[in-house]
């Protein structure tokens, strides 16, 4: 068996654990997977009611502005949070057979990504209802998703690694998520940020993916080259960093689970 076929063998398992995670998430809920569509819709509705009066003049089509930020942030943040438990949550498998451990991290990111894809239904519904520009530029979305996926995977690798050794990270991550959410300008326009603090936002990788998504879905334009280049750099760097951190520690996981 070539090594490629060998890897391919594990993709059947990847598919099964992704299905398991999705099934478990909606275990015994009446609406099941419909919640991935309803959840962003309802959150958007609540936020739109609260914030639309505040920022009405600054943002055109606030619901789409909000949804783009929310979906992208949820995906990247969710990948990290899921990644934290990728190794510890699958200890039962890691203890009994040899299986490449990146499969578990990959599965968690795929689960978050499937959520993102389902939520797109909500986005499309709102785009139609609010009369957002539906243009050919939407075809650039898959490129953005590939970049965001690379970033999320690298991010998840890092948290999967350290989350295995330090369980405290699970608690810290919640606090971190909150901070991250507020510097991702999901609910408010970036223009309200005083220039002195703008650099904090520019350093936030998530914001670049969100900005690209807004350009495509809210403004109906092609994202500008500068932001694409920055986003690509973040994606490649994060993925390389994640893989190298994970690979340097993965042989020790068994002792900590």
């Amino acid at each position, binding site marked *: 068996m070539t090594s490629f076929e060998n890897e391919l*063998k*594990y993709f*059947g*398992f990847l*598919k*099964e*654990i992704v299905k*398991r995670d999705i*099934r*478990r998430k909606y*275990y015994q809920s009446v609406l099941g997977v419909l919640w991935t569509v309803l959840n962003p819709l309802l959150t958007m509705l609540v936020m739109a009611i609260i914030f639309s009066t505040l920022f009405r003049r600054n943002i055109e089509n606030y619901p789409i502005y909000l949804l783009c930020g929310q979906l992208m942030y949820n995906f990247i943040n969710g990948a990290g949070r899921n990644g934290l438990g990728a190794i510890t949550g699958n200890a*039962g*498998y*890691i*203890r*009994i*057979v*040899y*299986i490449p451990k990146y499969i578990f991290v990959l599965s968690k990111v795929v689960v978050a990504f499937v959520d993102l894809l389902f939520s797109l239904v909500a986005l499309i519904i709102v785009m139609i209802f609010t009369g957002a520009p539906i243009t050919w530029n939407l075809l650039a979305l898959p490129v953005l998703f590939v970049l965001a996926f690379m970033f999320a995977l690298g991010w998840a690798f890092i948290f999967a690694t350290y989350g295995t*050794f*330090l*369980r*405290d990270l699970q608690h810290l991550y919640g606090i971190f998520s909150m901070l991250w959410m507020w510097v991702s300008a999901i609910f408010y326009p970036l223009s309200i940020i005083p220039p002195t603090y703008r650099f904090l936002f520019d350093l936030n990788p998530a914001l670049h993916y969100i900005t690209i998504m807004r350009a495509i879905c809210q403004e109906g334009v092609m994202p500008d080259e500068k932001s694409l280049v920055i986003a690509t750099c973040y994606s490649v760097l994060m993925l390389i960093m994640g893989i190298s951190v994970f690979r340097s520690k993965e*042989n020790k996981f*068994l*002792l*900590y689970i």
Partner: protein
Amino acid sequence: MSDTAIRVENVSMMFNLSREREERLKEYVINLLKHKLFFDEFWALRDISFEVKKGGTLGIVGTNGSGKTTLLRLVAGIMKPTKGTVYTEGSIAPLFAMGTGFDGSLTAKENIFLVGALHGYSKSYMKKRFDEIIEFAELQDFVDVPVKNFSSGMTSRLAFAIATLVQTDILIADEVLAVGDAKFRKKSEERMANMRSNGATVLFVSHSSGQVRRICQDAIWLDHGKLVMAGPSAEVCAAYDEFCKQ
């Protein structure tokens, strides 16, 4: 192609007990301050060497904590030895007492596909063999019941049925047969004998020297991570029984 299925050469396995406990930040910092981080070594195995020929059966006996399971995990490739080398040839089907890989909230049916995929079998293949697994495990009435409601006997029957589904080159079994009732034990021993006669190599671990005697030609005896004795299973088991009586 050699005629050796498993070769273990001068294998030692060290665990750092103090490092394994640092799950909490507080403890980590305290240990760091006390400079205790890198001490407290524990050698689970020391300088173990043995060889199993293709088609051979090797039993491993020893008291609790003698390093039997660690040794199996090394052979299965789940862990890497601190020193020495482990060489295996062919596909490995591992069966461990400490876990079956089942997810309690999923039904028997869902678990069969999940664990089947874990062992690298495709979905279409598992579909073809599904009825056979259920029949062997005697779980016809429990296909759609979550595994958390199963008794330990039912769980281990299912685990055994999946792991021994195909003819593998090396079967690693860790006290799996201890849980089932006498009838199932007989059936599973038959299946193992069948696999053996088809050329599989078996590595078998048990507290019960009776089973080792019955299933294995050769045996090794581990005590506190050291190889005490190796030879024909009857002799090793006799010596081990003698030791246990003391």
